[in-house]
């Protein structure tokens, strides 16, 4: 046997390898991001970082003039925060315990990568029980909480919360539930009342269910992420998924409000309007520069492409059979946030203590990429708004979550508190941060504690 021929035969498949390309990250912001051709690499770009937690005395970085402090540490995977008008801050600690069923040999490998990115065993902190809501009370209004209680526990991987009147709504991963909640309550003992079930099931790939209420409180909106990256679990697994559901809290009836949104989170109405906004995690494994995640206003009945297309009519080559009828009406989202940033939190700035340019702008919690060797996200970005529309490119607002190739924390949910400070949930850092403007006016008169 000719040895050279044998070698050629053995190395033949190498010819199938693809090539890399570069895209300027700044070209993937705003309404018209540069979208390169799909680049399905032989081995997808993977960049996940060992989680170390925050060394004592260390904190994320904020712009000059601002200061950042931890207002709660030692939490167990805090993923969402909600500031109440009385100054209390609710922290949703959440963990999904089960793993997805293995459908293909790649699934366990993918699971290992994700476990590393979310791992807390190496962070040096031994998290206590998760799946609960912790309440922080700042009774003297100095921005530093002086009380901390577990408001409600034994939840099922909760994420979204909303307070409407005297009701607290919690979006567990499998249902929206309601608790009676008078302002000032520090511990709920009443059992939950189920409002409506949400798609969960054995796969439950994107398990975070975001929640908000319409400005008049008559409707709830829950986001349900897809059960797959690009329909690889089959269409049956996607019923009522990759969608925002509109729920009547009185009857539990719901309808699909908008669809084709791969993994929508951070549901928030733009202040003073009836326009719902969301941040959406777009699909992976089309290369490091596809598909940009985005922030968008949501049109009732709108279809935003997933899984058949992205940014309007850019067809995903992996999805068959295709649906040209749906692609034809796919809406291009308002504002690209760049690829794989993993936007999970959204809050509009309604406070008055930050400088003028921040008013009405959007803070976006970017959990950070895995499908890029060069990381994106891992920060809270700020996007200025003019006339209710995003303008310019995002500015780094809270950074420093990655340092020396290790993840000290990862930002998720964001909210603006009574004093106009920004509250950031940091899940793998097991911390909640508060960013205030150093030159801010004195805190308002504290509300009476309940």
């Amino acid at each position, binding site marked *: 046997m000719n040895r050279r021929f044998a070698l050629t*035969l*053995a190395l*033949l*498949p190498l010819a*199938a390898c693809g090539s890399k390309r570069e895209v300027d990250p700044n070209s993937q912001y705003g309404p018209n991001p540069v979208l390169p051709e799909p680049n399905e690499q032989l081995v997808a770009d993977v960049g996940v970082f060992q989680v170390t937690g925050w060394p004592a005395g260390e904190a994320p970085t904020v712009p000059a003039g601002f200061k950042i402090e931890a207002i709660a540490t030692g939490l167990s995977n805090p993923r969402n925060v909600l500031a109440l008008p009385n100054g209390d801050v609710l922290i949703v600690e959440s963990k999904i315990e089960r793993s997805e069923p293995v459908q293909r040999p*790649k699934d366990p490998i993918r699971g290992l990568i994700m476990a590393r990115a979310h791992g807390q065993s190496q962070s040096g902190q031994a998290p206590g029980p998760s799946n609960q809501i912790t309440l922080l009370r700042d009774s003297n209004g100095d921005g530093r909480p002086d009380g901390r209680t577990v408001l409600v526990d034994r939840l099922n991987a909760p994420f979204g919360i909303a307070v409407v009147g005297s009701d607290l709504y919690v979006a567990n991963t499998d249902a929206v539930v309601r608790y009676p909640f008078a302002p000032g309550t520090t511990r709920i003992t009443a059992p939950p009342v189920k409002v409506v079930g949400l798609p969960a099931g054995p796969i439950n790939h994107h398990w975070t269910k975001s929640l908000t209420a319409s400005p008049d409180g008559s409707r709830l909106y829950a986001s349900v992420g897809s059960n*797959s990256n690009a329909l690889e679990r*089959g269409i049956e697994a996607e019923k009522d998924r990759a969608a925002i559901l509109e729920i009547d809290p009185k009857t539990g009836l719901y309808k699909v409000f908008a669809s084709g949104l791969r993994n929508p989170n951070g549901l928030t109405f733009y202040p003073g309007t009836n326009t719902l906004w969301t941040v959406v995690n777009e699909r992976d494994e089309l290369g490091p520069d596809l598909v940009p995640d985005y922030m968008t206003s949501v049109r009732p009945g709108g279809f935003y492409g997933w899984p058949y297309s992205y940014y309007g009519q850019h067809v995903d080559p*992996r999805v068959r059979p295709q649906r040209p009828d749906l692609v034809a009406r796919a809406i291009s989202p308002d504002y690209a946030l760049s690829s794989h940033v993993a936007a999970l939190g959204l809050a509009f700035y309604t406070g008055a203590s930050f400088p003028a340019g921040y008013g009405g702008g959007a803070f976006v919690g970017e959990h950070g990429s895995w499908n890029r060797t060069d990381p994106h996200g891992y920060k809270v970005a700020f996007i200025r708004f003019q006339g209710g529309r995003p303008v310019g490119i995002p500015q780094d607002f809270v950074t420093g979550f990655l340092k020396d190739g290790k993840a000290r924390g990862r930002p998720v949910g964001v909210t603006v508190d009574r004093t106009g400070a920004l509250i950031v949930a940091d899940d793998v850092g097991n911390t909640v941060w508060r960013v205030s403007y150093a030159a801010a006016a004195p805190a308002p008169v504290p509300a009476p504690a309940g």
Partner: protein
Amino acid sequence: MLCPILVAQIGSGHSFAAARLDVISPEPPPFLLVISPDSRGRMIDLADSMARSTRTPLTVAGHPVYSALLPVPIVCFLGALLTDIAYVGAPDMLWLDFSSWLLFAGLVAGGFAGALLIVELVRAGSGRRGALTLHFVLLLAAWITEIFNSLIHARDGWTAVAGTGITLSAIAAVLALAAGWFWQSARRALSGETR
């Protein structure tokens, strides 16, 4: 996976081989994979180009192991081609799942088979290695092709199969079948028997 304890007696010293034989003789338990020594109780190393005596294939409880393992990767790789064809005909993710698992099973079984085959190649000595080499190269080429094909098949949908995926499946199936074809003559040469 397979759990036999592989007792590989690869040494150049006669006394060592004999001593180990004492341990496992006369009746090795059936779970032991015994690499049978040649008729003089001697093991052959790679450099021993002078070894030309008759040898038998590796056996478990008297049955040749490699012959039993070889069909698994061939059938799996051929099966993956068939399920790829089914997927391209009617793109249901189920077919892609089948292909992915068939590739995986074929690679695992093929990996074991290939490891055994390398041992057989060493044992064959340079004199009769030629007959095995063509078989080995074809199987190795099929296996490497399917490594790449597994990565292609890990894509989430149509592009996992259409184009590159199914082409690699076809190439590997042909290579694996050819490897099986040439195994017959290689086996005869290896065992030195005529049937």
